[in-house]
């Protein structure tokens, strides 16, 4: 599988995401945000960080980077896109996922390992998990409170598009304890916690490694 990790100015988990993808046996490379294509990638990862310094709002400027047209086309073609933390914020700003990530309810930057329940295995990134399974991954964010209007939240629940939910404590006040969601096509996933920082036992948890397995994703479409 060919994996592209997009680098924006201010991305800081790009190398970790690349390492996790390579660890899962994929050919992975960086794509600069000024690029207008994804260099033949099968799967795109928007990594964590603070692109454009979070100016205006996290992800607000990055969504207009040239590469985002290619990411939108990739998503529209039903091909896999994963946004981690800042990457999730970018996907929401780009309206590839519904809702928004607002300032944490407690105002503090939260940096610790959280527990989530896997709610859906119907995405390319969660196919290796069992629904109901709990996983532990770190969060590190100041703007991770998932918000959307009630109709959007109800629709996400009804269509089983909440992918991860915080259990045993909600670190940021996210509505309905939502940690990660997917789009209608189930090919775009965004989550606040960092699977790439939980991809090896040495890091304290390897619960995130399965997100990079990408089993069943067709290559070279």
């Amino acid at each position: 599988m060919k994996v592209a990790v997009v680098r924006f100015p201010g991305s800081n988990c790009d190398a970790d995401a690349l390492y996790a993808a390579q660890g899962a046996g994929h050919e992975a490379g960086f794509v600069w945000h000024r690029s207008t294509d994804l260099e033949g990638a099968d799967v795109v990862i928007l990594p964590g960080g603070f692109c454009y310094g979070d100016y205006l709002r996290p992800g607000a400027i990055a969504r207009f980077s040239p590469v985002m047209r290619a990411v939108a086309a990739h998503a529209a073609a039903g091909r896999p896109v994963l946004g981690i933390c800042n990457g999730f914020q970018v996907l929401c700003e780009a309206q590839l996922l519904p809702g928004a990530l607002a300032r944490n309810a407690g105002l503090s930057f939260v940096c610790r390992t959280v527990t989530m329940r896997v709610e859906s295995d119907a995405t390319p990134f969660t196919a290796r998990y069992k629904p109901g399974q709990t996983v532990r991954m770190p969060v590190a964010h100041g703007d991770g409170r998932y918000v959307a209007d009630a109709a959007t939240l109800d629709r996400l629940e009804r269509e089983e598009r909440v992918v991860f939910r915080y259990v045993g404590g909600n670190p940021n006040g996210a509505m309905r304890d939502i940690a990660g969601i997917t789009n209608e096509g189930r090919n775009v996933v965004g989550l606040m916690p960092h699977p790439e920082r939980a991809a090896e036992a040495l890091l304290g948890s390897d619960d995130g490694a399965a997100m990079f397995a990408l089993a069943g994703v067709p290559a070279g479409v």
Partner: protein
Amino acid sequence: MSRFRARVRVMPRVSILDPQGQAVSHALGELGFAGVGDVRVGRAVELLLDAGSADAARDGALKMCERLLANPVTEDYVLETVEPA
């Protein structure tokens, strides 16, 4: 072409928790200011725009609000003034 100064106010939507506003409200109480209720913290954006008319500048600024300056999920915006700069 003339130059205009447009002022936009972007505020967190009333239905959405504003933790910054809560913190400011709390801090004002701690400082001894009595009677401070709900506080909301937004941002002001000032734009210098070259446009053929004030209306054109206003139209441009509104499009900028929709496209970038405010998040339609969490924020409301008001174009407060457009005046010759």
